[in-house]
């Protein structure tokens, strides 16, 4: 499993019948310790209601089909959790309210400038 950030949503009208009703999110892979983006982006199915900006836990491969909502569907990446907190080396590196510790200074600067 990996930690990612929801950066968008993919809309697809013409798709496999078994994907009708499945939300498809664009999720950027993150370094769980620092919150830095790795540059990898994937289309990830979501059945728990994650939204833009959420940090999520993504499961890959056949594991993505082991939920009631995705059983027997052509899905190989699935949001299985919306992350509340991450602790690494004894420090709170991420919280849903405050974001990643390493990005707080940068984000504060951006908010100030807008």
């Amino acid at each position: 499993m990996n930690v990612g950030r929801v950066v968008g949503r993919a809309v697809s009208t013409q798709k496999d019948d078994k994907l009708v009703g499945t939300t498809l999110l664009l999720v950027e892979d993150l370094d769980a310790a620092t919150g830095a983006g790795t540059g990898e982006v994937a289309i990830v199915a979501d059945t728990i209601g994650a939204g833009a900006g959420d940090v999520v836990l993504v499961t890959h491969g056949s594991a993505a089909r082991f939920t009631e909502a995705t059983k027997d569907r052509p899905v190989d990446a699935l949001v299985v959790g919306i992350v509340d907190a991450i602790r690494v080396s004894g420090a709170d590196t991420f919280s849903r309210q405050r974001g990643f510790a390493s990005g707080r200074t940068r984000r504060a600067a951006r908010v100030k400038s807008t």
Partner: protein
Amino acid sequence: MVLAEVTGLVVATPKAGELEGVRFAVLQPLGADLRARGGPVVAVDTVGAAEGQRVFTAAAGSARLASGMRGRPVDLAVVGIVDEIALAKRSVA
């Protein structure tokens, strides 16, 4: 199976119902020199590993053969805590 060090944990309250009661650990995979190799990953922990411990993992379908993980949407599980590693010519923690 991959050797890794437990570096932290992930808390996710809103999650797939199939993951109720599951503990998530942040792992840093280790290379042949026992140093960090690649970025951190998240695994379910079924053996009670603590931060700083070296562990090994089972991936993909094997992860769901870990205790209590059958039928759950997990792709990586901590399945053992390493007590000792013996490398040729030298012994390391």
